[in-house]
């Protein structure tokens, strides 16, 4: 498929899924009504009837949630695509390699340790920023550790990468369990929310709190697209082509952990988005990071919005954690990828 057509298709897909997702729920709205309510705010009045109640529900409940889905989906997808470029391996994913669990451990520690602090009058927004910073630090620490561990003689081995991720996940989960064990009732409720992975806590405050942490990576990561293309040739080869390898690694690790940390801070661990989105986009428009990264942003946002739609409508009025939905979609695809890669894993370093 032609690349610019893929881009247009993905944009249309995102807009449609946002309109549909914003309309579905206890108070059902048609996509056109949603569009009319949104445009009314901008001063354009479409000849579509809607009630004031609909407008309130949309602006106060649905829209923050959909926006959060867009932000987190795009952040996770672009982070996954960049990490796959950096690890020179299409199996890298923020959750699989333990970056997300590092972030969630840090978030849980902060919730338990500082729950008294936030109840003592610190603003909600600053509380979210504190969580963001903590989960960013956790994500940073675990990604640097995994990156170091997975490199054997200057190369990232697939097996070591996945094993390092496994070890990191195990350690972080154990420590998270330890912290949970010491938590009191109220803290436990907040902690459980993190571990499940859900967009249920969406409000304009949460959207605002992660906005900069997602927009910066989404804006800056595609600028490294050319470098990531060259990096797929090999580390020395990229250097010969004029890439400052050290700076590239620092930049990618920093920006991806920023996005993953922010996503984990408000929605918990949502797996497989960072893995399957770049993979699907690659089959659509090729491996070139210059198209892969922006397309992943669009498709990641679409996929998470739709997954969230399923999670809150499938057993309505109850809600299924979104992490379960993405895992159910993602695991078979991951196994398929693993199967394709089997030869590589058995024999060679990438």
């Amino acid at each position: 498929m032609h690349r610019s057509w893929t881009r247009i298709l993905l944009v249309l897909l995102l807009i449609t899924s946002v309109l549909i997702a914003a309309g579905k729920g206890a108070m059902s709205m048609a996509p056109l009504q949603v569009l009319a309510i949104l445009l009314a705010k901008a001063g354009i009045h479409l000849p579509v009837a809607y009630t004031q109640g609909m407008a309130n529900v949309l602006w106060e409940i649905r829209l923050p949630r959909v926006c959060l889905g867009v932000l987190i989906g795009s952040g996770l997808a672009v982070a996954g695509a960049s990490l796959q470029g950096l690890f020179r391996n299409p199996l890298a994913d923020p959750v699989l390699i333990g970056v997300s669990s590092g972030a969630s451990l840090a978030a849980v520690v902060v919730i338990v340790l500082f729950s008294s602090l936030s109840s003592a009058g610190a603003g909600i927004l600053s509380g979210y920023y504190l969580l963001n910073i903590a989960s960013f630090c956790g994500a940073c620490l675990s990604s640097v550790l995994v990156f170091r561990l997975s490199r054997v003689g200057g190369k990232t081995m697939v097996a070591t990468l996945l094993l390092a991720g496994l070890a990191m996940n195990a350690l972080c989960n154990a420590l998270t369990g330890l912290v949970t064990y010491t938590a009191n009732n109220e803290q436990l409720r907040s902690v459980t929310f993190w571990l499940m992975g859900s967009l249920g806590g969406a409000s304009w405050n949460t959207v605002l709190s992660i906005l900069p942490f997602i927009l910066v990576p989404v804006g800056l990561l595609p600028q490294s697209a050319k470098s990531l293309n060259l990096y797929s040739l090999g580390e020395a080869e990229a250097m010969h082509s004029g890439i400052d390898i050290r700076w590239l690694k620092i930049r990618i690790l920093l920006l991806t952990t920023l996005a993953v940390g922010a996503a984990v801070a408000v929605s918990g661990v949502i797996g497989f988005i960072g893995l399957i989105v770049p993979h699907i986009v690659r089959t659509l428009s090729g491996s070139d990071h210059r198209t892969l990264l922006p397309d992943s942003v669009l498709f990641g946002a679409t996929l998470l919005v739709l997954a969230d739609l399923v999670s809150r409508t499938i057993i309505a009025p109850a809600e299924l954690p979104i992490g379960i939905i993405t895992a159910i979609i993602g695991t078979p695809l991951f196994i398929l990828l693993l199967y394709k890669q089997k030869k590589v894993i058995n024999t060679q370093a990438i």
Partner: protein
Amino acid sequence: MIRIDHITWWTHPPARRLRAVRALVPRGSRFDHAGTGRKILDDISCSILPGELTVLLGPNGAGKSTLLRMVSGEKRPHAGTVFLDERSIHTLPIPQLALRRGVLTQHYSVSLPFTVEEVVTMGRYPHCHTSPSAKDKEIVSACLQEMQVDHLAARPFNTLSGGEQQRVQMARVLAQLGGAGDSDGPPASDKILLLDEPTASMDLLHQQQCLTRARQLAKEGATVVAVLHDLNLAARFADSLLLLKDGQLLAGGRPSELLTPDLIYEAYGIKTSILYPGQYDFPVIIPALPTTISSGDNPARPDNHSISPNDEPVFGKDTSVIINKNNYFHTPINEKIYANDHPKGR
């Protein structure tokens, strides 16, 4: 001009010390722990001139690839410096260096499913800011044709055979240096092409083609350095040779001066016969069979490492015709292989 100035490389780098402490410890003394482990490169100094195809020769593990890595700026020598136009190569900005210096390494695999054309286009990345211009695309297609891989352009790189991958990578490096007709790029005399065993898995035709292209770049004024294992290719294409052994520079010079049976024996430990076919201006090196290697230790003729009529195989004195073919194929080692291939009862 590339000047290699006393460079040394250990398997384990020297301990970091304060400059003041290092200055106090006399060099080479018992307290001068310069580096530990094996010396891969040992105090190598030489100059590599522009306008020449310089070939690095030497047995496995001689340090050829490591030396090439120092020259490319990829690795920093533990002692000594590589100068490029009288400036240390490590002080030059990496992006600026990439505009004039292309390197073909022995690492061909690409981690993501890029097409051949995309891989070769990456050669133009150092020159373009966002996306490749029409000029860049022209250069890419010219380089694809030059290495005869244009028919593979849409194929995924990783599905190619080893030799094809090597040719595509060569096309990428050529594209980086601006291909044949790049008038906007750096002047030819500024260009540097470093090739690490470029012909290792190429077929006969493409070996010749690849090195002819490298030679042509050198004739245009570029500095070209290649690591080769095939002495005949080196004799055919090199303007000058650097012979390495055990991390030391054994000799350097023109192929006609350097490729003598004695020197080859010293470097590789194998007897050779060197022929000068009348119609060509380069020598042909014919190695002895493995059985005659052992007779190289023969104390009777310790300093003559040329194959003589007394050894097998036997060659004519002044022509390139092998006259004793039967002898050539009936050395004991060949009989043994023959016997293993055809076990009794078959």
